[in-house]
């Protein structure tokens, strides 16, 4: 019999330290599979965030930076501007990208850095123990919203993909989810497209993953897949939010 599904080469064969059911692992795998598929592992420099996914450093078989909390897009800018031949991506959580790193992501997008950003939105600060994130949904209980996120004092969840899509410069912005196999399959194609835009010299590609945090959501992994679908999708609709125009030849959009 043939193996029809196995490890990606770009993944180091070391068990993930993530909590049971945490979809960070799935997202790592998708990225690794696409790196393999595109044959770019030796050109890739990845940038890990501060957040649970800081450990992606230890899981990918390619050159990796560890960036400070929120600043991965700035690190990516420095790396890519100096070595345009590299394929540069960041991997960031919602605290990292949508809170402390807001400036860096907005301006990397707006300058049109030729990088790819993977944004893992699990609606909570995972690593630090489950505080409210800017992407927490209304009513969501976290360790700093004991009675649920109150829109009167905390506002509504920030929708980074739409916000970045309101800028003129960036080439590709899409949102995918990890809550069901068919969404994971769709996500894989989106990851590939995002890298392909970078390889084609197009500026800034961005993929938002809706992801689970069973531990801090206080649910079983299967419950959290359901919760993601039911509670997060209404605030974070899936799909390609911005794509380069059909006649784009690789430079900026007109």
């Amino acid at each position, binding site marked *: *019999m*043939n*193996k*029809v*599904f*196995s*490890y990606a080469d770009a*993944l180091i064969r070391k*068990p*993930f330290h*993530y*909590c*049971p*059911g*945490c*979809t*960070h*692992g*799935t997202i790592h*795998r998708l990225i690794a*599979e696409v790196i393999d*598929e595109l044959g770019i592992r030796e050109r890739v420099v990845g940038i890990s965030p501060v957040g649970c996914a800081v450990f992606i450093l230890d899981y990918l078989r390619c050159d990796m930076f560890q960036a400070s909390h929120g600043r991965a897009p700035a690190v990516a800018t420095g790396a890519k501007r100096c070595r345009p031949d590299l394929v540069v991506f960041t991997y960031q959580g919602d605290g990292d990208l949508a809170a402390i790193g807001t400036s860096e992501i907005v301006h990397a997008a707006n300058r049109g850095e030729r990088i790819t950003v993977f944004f893992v939105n699990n609606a909570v600060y995972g690593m630090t123990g489950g505080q409210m994130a800017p992407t927490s949904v209304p009513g969501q209980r976290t360790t700093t919203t004991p009675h649920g996120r109150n829109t009167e004092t905390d506002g509504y969840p920030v929708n980074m993909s739409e916000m970045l899509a309101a800028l003129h410069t960036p080439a590709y912005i899409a949102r995918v989810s990890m809550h*069901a*196999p*068919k969404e*994971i*399959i769709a996500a*894989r*194609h989106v990851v*590939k497209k995002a890298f392909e835009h970078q390889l084609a010299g197009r500026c800034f590609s961005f993929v938002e993953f809706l992801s689970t945090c*069973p531990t801090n959501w206080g649910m*079983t*992994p*299967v419950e959290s*897949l359901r919760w993601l679908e039911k509670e997060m999708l209404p605030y974070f609709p899936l799909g390609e939010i911005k794509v380069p125009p059909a006649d784009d030849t690789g430079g900026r959009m007109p």
Partner: protein
Amino acid sequence: MSRIRIMTERCKGCETCNVACPVGILKMSESLNAQGYHYSMVDDPSRCLGCRLCAISCPDLAIEVFAEGAHYRFFAYESESR
């Protein structure tokens, strides 16, 4: 003919594969693995479609899938070019 292999020691017992399997042939073990988790098991291997959905959903890379000969692909996952 298809079959999957669950790397029991990598399994963290999240049950994601259980709900992903379209034919419902996965279930959790009674006993614990070395990490202390109930792990996923195949209940009725003969019914496995080789659809890969369990493996695709597993966050911990604990499942490999094998298929006989020219495997019928239910959907595009990897690019065909590979």
